[in-house]
């Protein structure tokens, strides 16, 4: 009697024909979700830490103001003067009425500059702000 090895008759290979399609789909997803327009941050800062923090759900509404440890203020792509903030932020608010201003301020800063920026924001009627902080563990 002849013994035969039991072996399935199917081909032993993974069909790779659809692999490019799958990969392209993934690729498209990442291309769409990536926000490439990252602003060059010109100031050095370390964020403070806090526990009771919230997430900003809608990233499109966010506009940033950076304050470095040397007290320089950056909006968009350039360093600005304190007096210019009102004008810039007002034009932002006109374009996007419910803008959230995220303040990324170095933790070693003094409250004086924070208060000044807040006053400028109030004049520009950008009232929704967010003190950007890291999560304290």
């Amino acid at each position: 009697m002849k013994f035969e090895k039991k072996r399935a008759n199917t081909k032993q290979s993974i069909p790779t024909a659809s692999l490019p399609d799958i990969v392209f789909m993934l690729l498209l997803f990442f291309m769409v979700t990536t926000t490439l327009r990252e602003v060059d941050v010109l100031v050095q800062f370390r964020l403070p830490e806090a526990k009771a923090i919230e997430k900003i759900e809608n990233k499109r509404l966010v506009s940033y103001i950076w304050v470095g440890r040397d007290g320089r203020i950056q909006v968009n792509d350039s360093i600005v003067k304190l007096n210019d903030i009102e004008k810039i932020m007002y034009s932002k608010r006109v374009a996007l009425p419910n803008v959230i201003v995220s303040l990324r301020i170095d933790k070693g800063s003094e409250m004086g500059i924070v208060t000044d920026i807040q006053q400028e924001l109030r004049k520009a009627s950008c009232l929704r702000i967010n003190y950007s902080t890291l999560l304290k563990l």
Partner: protein
Amino acid sequence: MVQIKKRKIPDAEIPTSSMADISFLLLLFFLVSTVIDVDTGIGLVLPEYIPPAQQQFVPISKDRLAALLINENGDVLLNNEVISIPQISKTLQPRIESKIDQPANKKLVVSVKTDRKTSYNLFIQALDQVKQAYFNVRNEYSLQHWGKRLVDLDERSGEMKELKEKIPITISIAEPESVKK
């Protein structure tokens, strides 16, 4: 007769075997360059700007107001009592709780005031404590009434709405005073 041979046209095919590799490379690039960091922070709504000439003094009764003062040395004054920053949330919690059933115009108002020289980090720590006090009270209320934790509540649910109505977070940033020289 010379036979004119018809030139054989080679198969016009694009080699697609390397397509997967190429797209994998692109995919990797986008995977690496994507930043899916969610912005986190302490949210606040500033009051509207009113020119100093038109500002009116609105008296707030003492039992509604929790005045938080942080000076440049990092000393914290809560209603004229010196406390340390980690104590703020414990001190505020009973006061917030006592006002849950009061009407909206009797809820607690936390006023935060700082010096110009106060460190920003301290201000955030203090603000964090205030927020924590509110979150703890909300969490307890939510556990008592619906048996759910605050984090499990949906942002748009009716329960969240009730919470926001019963325990509104009112943090007032004091109007800056002109610097005395």
